[in-house]
């Protein structure tokens, strides 16, 4: 009589109970593991890779901040300090001057300062910059690519789903550790001074 099988309904009930216990244990373990991982891993923030950037203008129009938290920054060690600066002057400018009609920047956020013949320094006024990348396109096309965009973390809300990253055609946005939040250009500062590297800006 001892080899009598248990009824089928009891077997199924035991199986469901066991399954539920297992699922609970796994989910609890998962939550605990995820919490532990999150507490030990570094916090991440959004940043854009200037070498991937295609100067599409989305940083100016898509950011939830007004004006955008993306700003133009200047790698002075890459800059040629040119008189005829492709990032400052419109291609069809009638003179190499600071006249408004000759400036490429729609908000006049770049200040041109004479240093010595024939050098000029270009400084970005971040309060005026809207992150449109027009100057970046000009500098990349004709210069060394010293003007480039970066997410400025004193302004960025660090949205979970970055509105610019969603529409960036170059997928240039990425999460970077908060303790190293910028991807600044500048071959000389990073020790990369090979001819090929500099040619690529």
């Amino acid at each position, binding site marked *: 009589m001892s080899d009598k099988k248990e009824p089928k309904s009891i077997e199924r009930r035991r199986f469901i109970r066991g399954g539920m216990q297992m699922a609970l244990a796994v989910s609890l373990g998962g939550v605990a593991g995820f919490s532990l991982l999150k507490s030990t891993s570094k916090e991440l923030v959004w940043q854009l890779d200037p070498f991937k950037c295609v100067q599409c*203008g989305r940083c100016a129009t898509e950011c939830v901040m007004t004006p955008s938290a993306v700003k133009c920054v200047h790698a002075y060690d890459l800059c*040629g300090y*040119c*008189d*005829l600066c492709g990032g400052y002057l419109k*291609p069809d400018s009638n003179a190499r001057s600071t006249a408004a009609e000759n400036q490429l920047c729609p908000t006049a956020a770049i200040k041109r300062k004479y240093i010595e013949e024939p050098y000029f320094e270009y400084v970005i006024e971040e309060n005026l910059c809207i992150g449109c990348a027009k100057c970046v396109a000009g500098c990349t096309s*004709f210069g*060394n690519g010293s003007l480039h965009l970066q997410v400025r973390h004193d302004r960025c809300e660090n949205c979970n789903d970055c509105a610019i990253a969603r529409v960036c055609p170059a997928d240039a946005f990425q999460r970077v550790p908060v303790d190293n939040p910028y991807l600044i250009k500048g071959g000389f500062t990073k020790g990369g001074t090979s001819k090929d590297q500099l040619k*690529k800006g």
Partner: protein
Amino acid sequence: MNRKLVNIVLIVLAVAIVIVIGKDFIGKKAGKNIENPFEYNMDEFRKVDSTQILYAETFHFPLKIHDWAGITVSDSMIIVASANHLLKFDYSGKQIFGKQLIDTATCITIDENRQIWIGMSHYVVMYDINGTLVKRWNSFGDRALFTSLAVSGENVFVADAGNRIVYHCNTNGQIIRRIGEKNEQKEIPGFIIPSPYFDVAIDDGGFLWAANTGRHTFENYNADGSLRTSWGVTSFKIEGFSGCCNPAHIAILDDNSFITSEKGMPRIKIYDQHGQFIGIVAPPAAFEGSLAPDITVDKQHRVIALDFERQQIRIFERKKE
């Protein structure tokens, strides 16, 4: 009945999830294709008058190695240096010689004795035509960045973009003179070299020409290092040079007309010996990207370009009248 209801709920849920994901995907795709209100439009400057195009591309062939340093030509042979190799091709694109270099090359030229001179960033080596290493100069220091070489008899001119100077050396690498240092008394403006584009060439009279790329000028120097003459046009238009470092590469034909190659908006042009714009060898539409092709010319006045973007050797010949 209950099972039927559960199935219906599950199907509705699955459809809803698919709709949400699809909408997000399509929305994201549409967002990526919106127009750029801040577009930097260079189309106007890429257009050229077709009557100004005096050359036509007659042949091109691909290069299989990357990181090319420069190109030169001798007789019916095209010689190119990549970062690590020296290669020779005939005009049909057939490789006839290949050799690994001892270091990373940055520029190349060939002299009238068919000796190949290669700049290795901060020193120079010389190979004979069979690829045997004949000379190796001492280093010019860590700051040196050699971008061009020109040889005339026993005189070797080395363009150093790092120190913004042209060294006039003998064939053993001893410096005879430093050319182009700023000197107001001698009215030498000094080289402005914002990036590693600094080319030199020798004209038919044996005089040195250097491209002062920061000023968009060609400067011609006497044997004693004094400035003989200069010319240049700064403009985004076709007859001028723009950006920080143009003309990036130069070559001189035996009638002393100049061939120029520009970066930013790549184009190859021809100027007469006085610097007057003659016409276009290759318009911007012939190129992709922004790197300036290195150029050389042969005795038949063909322009041979090393296109870094397409990884090709491209041969341009003057159109028949």
